[in-house]
């Protein structure tokens, strides 16, 4: 077990510097520009078509892969760029500035779509359907529009060169890759991946999901519109069949999903797979049927790979995860747990904890009512938490404990009553705002962000300053989990510790732990409870929701017991546990033997 003293962070455990990646990107770009002219001319159109798909895949990866939202409206942005470029060039003006303006308009439109989807409360399938319908509306409008040339589209009157198209596309693809890389390396990418894995937990960790989604959509739409413009420049026309092609989007989406959604290499791997065969077919034959057969064969191949990957664990990341598994090191052993528990261990621990007088009331819940349909889950609940105080919240299943946590953190809104934090009424504040005001929590079921490393899981909620890095690192080292990188494959205890650490980073005022000890051994309980005491000693109020009274009672300053949605007891552990109503509600009147044991634990 790592000691509580902070050791200097070893250099190897820090996040690797981003510099080599950028250098590689720059080198590849230079090499592509240098050697493009040397390519045999007959392969150029095939490669350009491939780059168009690759760029669309990278643009879509930002929303579909990293943020995890199935947006099917993408081709509308693509068309905005394509039609703008053709129309402006046909009026004999330079089209590049208007194209950028169109891209900005696309970004604004994307932002509007996020706002609408949020107002309608759409996600998953319903979001996909919504965006598909928006796309269909746009397509109907284009086909009905005379200036846009209806089904035939508009043709560029100016001659465009293949070479310029190629150079533009190389630049675009590299910009697309760089955008993905930059996002994934930054705190923004961390937040987007968190939203993909678990939007509720992300909000509880201080991520403003609406704002982040709007950003992702806008960036993706901006890039997409540029791509549409360059494709139209290359083709020499913009028409519904190309600029609004669902087939192109589906190919790009498949490329992202087979390659590895939300990864930097995924779209490239996927595009090679999804486009490679038909590229080969077009280069050997001009027969359209051969190309169609090649496309079918590719889809079959893609499904074969999806099928094979799905039989493996952790196949979320497509080919990337499979390739990654080939080179990955074995995970470090699980952390050492607490020193062997002598019976006296708990007592010593309690005595060792610096005695502290609870401070002022930080969090105050007054008269909270909540009903789900006809079931009243919370009835006129009052609760006060003081700075530096550890309060155990107990009660039988269905007593309303988790609902109370949800009301305090803003995951659900109460029907009546107020929640006040340090004198400020926060009843109507959103979950992330409450996090930034110092309320953090864990969830009953482990809700780690599996797309993120253990470090990033803990760091996701922080403000991102240099102090944050130190704090995160200190917590990871203290819990002995700094050697773990993958959070998806980590053992239960490591995941639990990471979740608790994640909440601790944000819990400047109030820390809520929902059943943090469930499923752990007594030694592991000690590790977590020690952390809780340290947090409380720093002046944070801690609310511990727990069934394991024996384990929790010794560390609590106060116990609050709920039954049927109401608080039935509130006071020092030894008084509360002797309360007849508590014994009755919690254990049933016949459970005398257990009763004695529990009270004994509290007395120790």
């Amino acid at each position: 077990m790592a000691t509580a003293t902070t050791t200097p962070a070893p250099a190897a455990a820090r996040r690797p510097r981003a510099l080599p990646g950028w250098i590689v990107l720059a080198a590849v770009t230079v090499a592509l520009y240098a050697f493009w002219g040397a390519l045999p001319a007959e392969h150029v159109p095939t490669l350009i078509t491939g780059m168009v798909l690759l760029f669309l895949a990278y643009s879509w990866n930002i929303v579909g892969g990293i943020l995890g939202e199935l947006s099917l409206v993408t081709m509308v942005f693509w068309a905005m760029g394509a039609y703008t470029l053709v129309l402006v060039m046909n009026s004999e003006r330079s089209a590049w500035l208007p194209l950028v303006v169109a891209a900005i308009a696309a970004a604004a439109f994307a932002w509007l779509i996020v706002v609408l989807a949020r107002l309608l409360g759409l996600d998953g399938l319903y979001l996909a359907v919504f965006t598909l319908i928006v796309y269909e509306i746009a397509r109907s409008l284009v086909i009905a529009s005379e200036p846009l040339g209806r089904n035939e589209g508009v043709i560029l009157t100016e001659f465009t060169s293949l070479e310029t198209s190629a150079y533009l596309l190389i630049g675009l693809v590299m910009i697309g890759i760089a955008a993905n890389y930059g996002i994934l390396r930054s705190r923004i990418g961390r937040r987007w991946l968190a939203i993909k894995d678990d939007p509720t937990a992300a909000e509880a960790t201080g991520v403003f999901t609406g704002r982040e989604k709007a950003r992702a959509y806008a960036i993706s739409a901006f890039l997409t519109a540029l791509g549409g413009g360059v494709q139209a420049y290359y083709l020499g026309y913009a028409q519904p069949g190309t600029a609004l092609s669902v087939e192109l989007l589906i190919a790009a989406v498949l490329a992202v999903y087979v390659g590895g959604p939300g990864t930097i290499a995924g779209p490239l791997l996927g595009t090679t797979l999804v486009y490679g065969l038909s590229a080969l077919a077009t280069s050997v034959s001009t027969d359209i049927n051969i190309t169609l057969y090649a496309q079918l064969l590719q889809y079959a191949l893609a499904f074969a790979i999806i099928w094979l990957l799905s039989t493996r664990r952790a196949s979320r990341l497509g080919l990337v995860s499979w390739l990654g598994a080939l080179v990955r090191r074995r995970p470090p052993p699980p952390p050492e747990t607490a020193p062997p528990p002598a019976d006296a261990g708990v007592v010593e621990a309690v005595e060792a904890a610096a005695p502290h007088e609870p401070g002022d009331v930080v969090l105050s819940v007054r008269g909270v009512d909540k009903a789900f349909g006809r079931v009243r889950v919370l009835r006129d609940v009052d609760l006060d938490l003081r700075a530096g105080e550890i309060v155990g919240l107990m009660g039988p299943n269905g007593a309303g404990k988790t609902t109370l946590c949800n009301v305090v953190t803003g995951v659900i809104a109460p029907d009546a009553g107020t929640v006040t934090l340090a004198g400020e009424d926060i009843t109507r504040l959103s979950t992330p705002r409450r996090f930034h005001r110092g309320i953090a929590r864990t969830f009953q079921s482990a809700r780690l962000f599996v797309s993120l490393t253990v470090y990033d899981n803990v760091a996701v909620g922080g403000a991102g300053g240099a102090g944050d890095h130190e704090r995160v690192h200190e917590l990871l080292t203290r819990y002995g989990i700094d050697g773990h990188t993958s959070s998806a494959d980590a053992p239960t205890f490591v995941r639990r510790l990471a979740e608790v650490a994640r909440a601790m980073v944000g819990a400047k005022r109030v820390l809520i732990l929902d059943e943090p000890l469930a499923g752990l051994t007594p030694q592991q309980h000690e590790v977590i409870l020690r952390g809780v005491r340290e947090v409380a000693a720093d002046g944070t109020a801690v609310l511990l929701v727990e069934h394991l009274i024996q384990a929790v009672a010794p560390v609590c300053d106060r116990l609050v017991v709920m039954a049927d949605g109401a608080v039935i007891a509130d006071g020092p552990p030894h008084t509360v546990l002797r309360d007849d109503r508590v014994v009755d509600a919690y254990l049933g009147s016949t459970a005398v033997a257990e009763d004695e044991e529990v009270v004994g634990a509290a007395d120790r």
Partner: protein
Amino acid sequence: MIQDIVSGTTVGALYVLLALGFTVSLGIGDMVNLAHGSVVVAGMYSVFALNTEFGVSPYLAVVAATLICAVLSLVVYVLAIEPSRRSGAGHREQVVYTLVITSGLAIAFQLFFGGDLKGLASGGDVVSLAGITLSRARLVAFLVAVVVCAVFVIWLRYTTSGQLVRMTGRYTESAYAMGVPVRTVFVGVFCLGGALAGLAGGLLMTILPVSPTIGLDFLLIALIVAIAGRLSFAGIAVVGLAYGIVQAVLSNRIGGSNTALVVFVAFLAVLAAQKLFVGRLAARRA
């Protein structure tokens, strides 16, 4: 006008049938099948091929198309639904994979049948009643659709086996613990949905021409009817019939493209209204 309403009702009944297929997969098994429209098209081409190549009578071919589409759905299940269920992934993967199948099937149709519109040689029999004329094909399609929908809903609602299927969807783990072959039930539900799509497609073929890429149109119809109908049988029946009638009435007056625009915008308005007045968007279970 009345003529339009009558012919719209016949098409609307087929929309109900194909949306019902989509809804049972989603409502009972929580399986998203965006290849549903392409399965409808497969049903259409099956009837076309059997009738023109082998001289099978259209209605016998419709029965065959139903079976063919059930088998095709099994393939879709194995390719697209099975991997996402196995890796514990949700709708996201199912949406992507079934969309890809839509794209793949469109290519296959193009290869086998060519890109142009194909239609059956129309019998031309006309039924006339109270001044309204209706082709015999439309009348038969309407009656079959109504009867099949009714039988299907009665089976699902009121028979022991139908209730077992619904409860397996709702309480999957309990059903598994009680020895229900859960996987078989889900595969069965998915193929049943495909069979309904095939039947709808086969009947549509007797009144409309087919081309490789219209699968997306049928998918949109299924999505709009199922979601606006909130995945309930009564809702689907009302929305499906209304869709058919509105489409028939409007397309003769403002053109097909504008009609589509009106329907899509109306759908978004319905979504917004549902959000406003009902709160939750769609009841997840049928």
